């Protein structure tokens, strides 16, 4: 039996429907892979083995009757931010200790209705605040990718394959893995690490400033943040309500399209859920992009950006041009203000959303001499440093006398950021191509990032504009850097035009190939 965990969702779907494999078999293969890898990668905070086996059994019964849903028998990992009935849901925070909701989030309910199997809950930055998955109460997630060094070895016979390159002289360069542990990015670091390391067929994730696309880029996976309003936020722990969107992380573009089709819906329980039917995203894959207008924004060429990323961007441009797209230079003049505006808007909304963690209704309670003392002690013990920092910033910018100077100014700048995109799309641009991140994955406990919160925030410099404008954005792996680490390109589309993103991302994927880490864990 080939390794079932290496099947893409579309491959597994075909084999399950063809009765070549069973949901029970593929689920068992993933549970075993998790058992072996999780002590090292720390991608899952809870594994729901019994539930997974029960769901797989039910899927097999349905498949046998020919009644399988779109994701029947496909084992998925779920980010800890999604409310899952009777199952650990803590946003990886200490303050939600022991919380097991009595309801199911709309997104996960949609997945189960389509037959997916839940393997467990995935690690993440606490309350989705972070870009390295190091703020989790459950400890950092490790990236299955490691840096490597190129060594030249003389080959007796010319041989191609297993990740090596053949040079004219018959010498082969081979990569030797470095031992340093790298972060998978964040906040959906558990989702990205699990998908990349074959610990689930696909995963749910959420993106408030880049939390799907940055970890996808760091792990060689595909991640899409759909248009604001496409996936229901009902039952997902709120961080910044005007920016939060759920989306999938998957091993290829087609799998991401399959997952988003099931996750997205029109939900009367979320007033920001947009009343628009969900298209068949998979149908967009393989459509030619001839004549499509691709915008290249000059503002995304930032100081200190590694040469590898600039080169990758140029490659992406060349691939799309070759496929018949028209490349146009564009300007999004307010780009540099997106990140500072985000660090007012997001903490402001977070300070309000996180006011509910008071030690009364759920989770942790630390006793105090009176009720205020109880609140203060509970929140001091329950929230980690990054979360406290953001609550403090949010409380400050919303406090009397500062609201206009900070929050109102930021919301006005946000209007200008959105207008930049509207102008470009009105001029006929169909899709915008940018790098996904300003660097490849960095080391766990990076001292530079730890000493200056703003350095960590800069990870989201290319992704955050998309949240500020409510647009869809996809990160697709496009190559490896000199150290052998994956890098991603980002495509930004018009509101609700996820189809163009899948269509274009697929062209990049066809040219670049897909990327798998060498197994060391």
């Amino acid at each position, binding site marked *: 039996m080939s390794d079932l965990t290496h099947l893409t969702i579309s491959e597994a779907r075909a084999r399950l429907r063809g009765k070549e494999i069973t949901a029970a078999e593929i689920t068992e293969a993933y549970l075993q892979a998790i058992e072996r890898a999780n002590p090292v990668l720390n991608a899952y905070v809870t594994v729901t083995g019994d539930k997974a086996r029960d769901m797989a059994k039910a899927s097999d019964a349905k498949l046998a009757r020919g009644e399988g849903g779109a994701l029947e028998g496909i084992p998925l990992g779920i980010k800890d931010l999604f409310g899952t009935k009777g199952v650990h849901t803590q946003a990886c925070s200490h303050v939600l200790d022991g919380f097991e909701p009595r309801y199911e989030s709309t997104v996960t309910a949609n997945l189960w209705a389509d037959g997916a199997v839940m393997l467990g809950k995935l690690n993440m930055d606490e309350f989705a605040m972070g870009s390295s998955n190091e703020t989790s109460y459950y400890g950092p997630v490790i990236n299955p990718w490691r840096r490597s060094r190129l060594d030249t070895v003389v080959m007796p016979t010319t041989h191609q394959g297993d990740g090596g390159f053949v040079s004219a002289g018959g010498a082969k360069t081979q990569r030797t893995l470095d031992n340093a542990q790298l972060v998978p990015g964040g906040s959906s670091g558990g989702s990205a690490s699990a998908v990349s390391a074959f610990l689930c067929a696909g995963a749910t994730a959420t993106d408030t400033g880049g939390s799907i696309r940055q970890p996808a880029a760091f792990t060689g996976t595909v991640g899409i943040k759909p248009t604001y309003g496409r996936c229901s936020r009902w039952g997902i722990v709120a961080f910044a309500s005007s920016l939060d969107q759920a989306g999938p992380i998957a091993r290829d573009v087609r799998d991401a399209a399959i997952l988003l089709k099931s996750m997205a819906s029109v939900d009367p329980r979320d007033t920001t859920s947009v009343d628009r039917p969900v298209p068949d995203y998979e149908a967009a894959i393989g459509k030619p992009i001839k004549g499509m207008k691709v915008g290249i924004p000059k503002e995304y060429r930032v100081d200190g950006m590694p040469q590898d990323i600039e080169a990758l961007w140029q490659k992406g441009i060349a691939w799309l041009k070759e496929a018949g797209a028209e490349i146009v230079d564009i300007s999004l003049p307010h780009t540099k203000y997106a990140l500072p505006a985000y660090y007012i808007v997001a903490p402001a909304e977070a300070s309000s959303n996180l006011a509910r963690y008071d030690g009364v209704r759920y989770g942790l309670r630390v006793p105090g001499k009176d009720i205020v003392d109880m609140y203060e002690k509970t929140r001091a013990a329950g929230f980690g440093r990054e979360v406290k920092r953001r609550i403090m910033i949010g409380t400050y910018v919303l406090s009397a006398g500062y609201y206009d100077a*900070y929050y109102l100014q930021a919301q006005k700048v946000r209007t200008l950021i959105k207008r930049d995109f509207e102008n470009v799309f009105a001029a006929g641009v169909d899709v915008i191509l940018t790098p996904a991140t300003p660097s490849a994955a960095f080391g766990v406990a990076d001292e530079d990032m730890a000493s200056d919160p703003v350095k960590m925030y800069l990870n989201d410099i290319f992704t955050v504009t998309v949240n500020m404008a409510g647009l869809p954005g996809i990160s697709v792996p496009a190559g490896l850097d000199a150290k052998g680490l994956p890098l991603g390109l980002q495509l930004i589309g018009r509101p609700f035009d996820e189809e163009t993103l899948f269509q274009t991302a697929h062209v990049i994927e066809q040219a670049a190939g897909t990327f798998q880490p060498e197994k060391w864990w």
Partner: protein
Amino acid sequence: MSVDLQTVKRVAHLARIAVSEEDAERMTGELNTILGFVEQLNEVDVSGVEPMTSVTPMEMKKRLDIVTDGNKASDIVANAPATEENFFLVPKVVE
């Protein structure tokens, strides 16, 4: 704009987060770094620009004013640290 130790303590109290002297000092530095970073927004000319209220132009959805849910008291208190007969228990608020 920057914050001093006193302001940090006041904000922490507004946010209901207990901070030690040491926490407050560390936070003062961190918050000033972040506030220094967001300062650049003042360069932007926003005259005549409306603040964003919604990224997607949409009409606020309204539902009928009828009861669609309820009778879930035990579900609601199920995760509370302290309850009694479907009530949340808190330290004494009124003497």
